[in-house]
């Protein structure tokens, strides 16, 4: 078992954002999570990444329980995420954004920082090489020294993905990575998703671009009003009348 969500319920006061939701994400695959606006997709991501403590239910990653852990501990276990609205570190260069993500692998202590800078420099060099490799993978190495927020929007999206990968995750949670991208950029994104998958990282994808989801995801879970209404392959989901109804409304019977 890789990533398991068991009977997750997330309540905010009277609002039930996620209701008894369960899912199994298989290792080495792209798993899609779709649903109309407000159906609870981002809430599930926020619970997964440790921002919210679930009202009920449990989450297991590689057999170990992660629900209830602090966000940074969950990242250390190998879950990383991107954000629907870009949240890059605005005062930093592209490279520094990635280096923040690598920080939790750092072994040097504050005492070494103060009194043994050689060790720190060695570690920095190691981080730097890894970061540059990731920038190469996402084809944004030319921008390494630029202020992250000064990049074109599509590139900023890639920086977000690179930064998440910098934490060296086993599973990557992508929250609408194609939002605001044009067709060419989306095509590029699909290539990138393929490369990430090839590097052995599982992807859990929330996305509104149906074409992208249908073409890349092996399994798709459909959410509506916080409840799972369907799950299966692209074609199964597409032809499921409940899914069609959730997205387009009920077909009027004459």
């Amino acid at each position, binding site marked *: 078992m890789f990533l398991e969500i068991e009977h997750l319920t997330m309540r905010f006061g009277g609002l039930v954002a996620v209701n008894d939701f369960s899912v199994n994400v298989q290792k080495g695959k792209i798993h899609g999570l779709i649903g109309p606006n407000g159906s609870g997709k981002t809430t599930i991501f926020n619970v997964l*990444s440790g*921002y919210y403590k679930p009202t009920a239910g449990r989450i297991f990653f590689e057999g170990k329980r992660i629900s209830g852990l602090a966000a*940074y501990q969950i990242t250390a276990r190998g879950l*990383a995420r991107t954000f629907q609205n870009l*949240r890059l570190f605005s*005062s*930093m260069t592209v490279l520094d954004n990635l*280096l923040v993500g690598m920080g*939790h692998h750092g072994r040097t202590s504050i005492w070494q920082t103060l009194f043994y800078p050689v060790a720190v420099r060695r570690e920095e060099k190691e981080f730097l090489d890894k970061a540059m490799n990731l920038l190469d993978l996402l084809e944004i190495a030319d921008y390494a020294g630029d202020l992250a927020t000064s990049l074109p929007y599509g590139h900023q999206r890639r920086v977000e993905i690179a930064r*998440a990968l910098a934490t060296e995750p086993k599973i990557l949670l992508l929250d609408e990575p194609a939002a605001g991208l044009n067709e060419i950029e989306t095509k590029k994104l699909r290539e990138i998703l393929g490369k990430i998958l090839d590097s052995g990282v599982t992807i859990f994808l929330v996305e509104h671009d149906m074409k992208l989801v249908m073409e890349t995801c092996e399994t798709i879970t459909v959410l509506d009003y916080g409840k799972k209404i369907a799950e299966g392959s692209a074609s199964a989901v597409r032809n499921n009348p409940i899914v069609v109804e959730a997205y387009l409304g009920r077909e009027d019977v004459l």
Partner: protein
Amino acid sequence: MKKKMNITQGVLLGVAACALLVFPFVAQNSYEVHIINQAGIYILISIGLNLAMGYAGQFNLAVGPLWGVGAYTAAILNTKFGFPFWVNLPAAIILTGLIGAFVGLPSLKVRSHYLAIVTIGLGVAINIALLNGGSLTQGAMGIPHIQMPDFFGYPINSDQRYYYLILVMVILGFFIARQILAGRIGRSFRAIRDDYMAAKAMGVNTAYYQVLAFVVSAAYAGAAGALFAHLNTYISPDIFDFPATLFVLTLTMVGGMGSLVGSLVGGVALPILQEYLRVIQNWQLVAYGVAIMVVVIFMPGGVIELTRRLSGWRKNRLALVDRDASG
């Protein structure tokens, strides 16, 4: 990725180093040296405040009273137990750092302006503790007869001699701060300031680094306190009240919040300016308030930001001239 200095920069640095070294000999009187010594002490507090506030976004507005904790630690260890400066300095740093951790705990629950208010309150509490510490702190009377240090038998017993001690401490403090900022700790600080939620998602242990920011800023204030106590040989609680925090905040903001060089600039400029402002006495606080407002509105990055902008503007102009010449 080291930047090479060009010749002009090298010469400037050399001149600055010489000026710093000979300053006590060319100063008109020891009072001028004394003011610069105070400036050095303020620079140290300011560097700490800058690390916490300018880089990590943690409003530690208890630095004035924390400075007092450092000073009282050194003063009590010296007058009551006879310990020398060289023992009292690390003791002051450690104790003030520990208390700084407690001051930093609320940062895990409240942010920005609310945190500023909470830390002001905690600072006031620390100051009241100094005032009401009984025979230990000697209340409003303060602690007199603190001994000046000596260096392997060589007494550092004048402002001129103390100047070099402070100079070494400021240089050390500056480079330690640079070291902290250069690596993982500095990046984590800035990540927390830029985007708290994203920092968490990137595996930054935000709680740890927030408290660390407070500890570091308190440690700097503690070092400054020990230096202050042994320089002035007399301390009292009123010195370390909220106006002290406000003064350091002002000079840091005028110099440049988020720039260590800004701390140097503001730390030298404001204490000198303060001497000229003595004529307006109680209106000084008003002047600091106005200075903060002007800085926030017109140059949020302080003097440093301003010079950066000017040099950038000049470079752009030169580039334009170049293009005109070649085209």
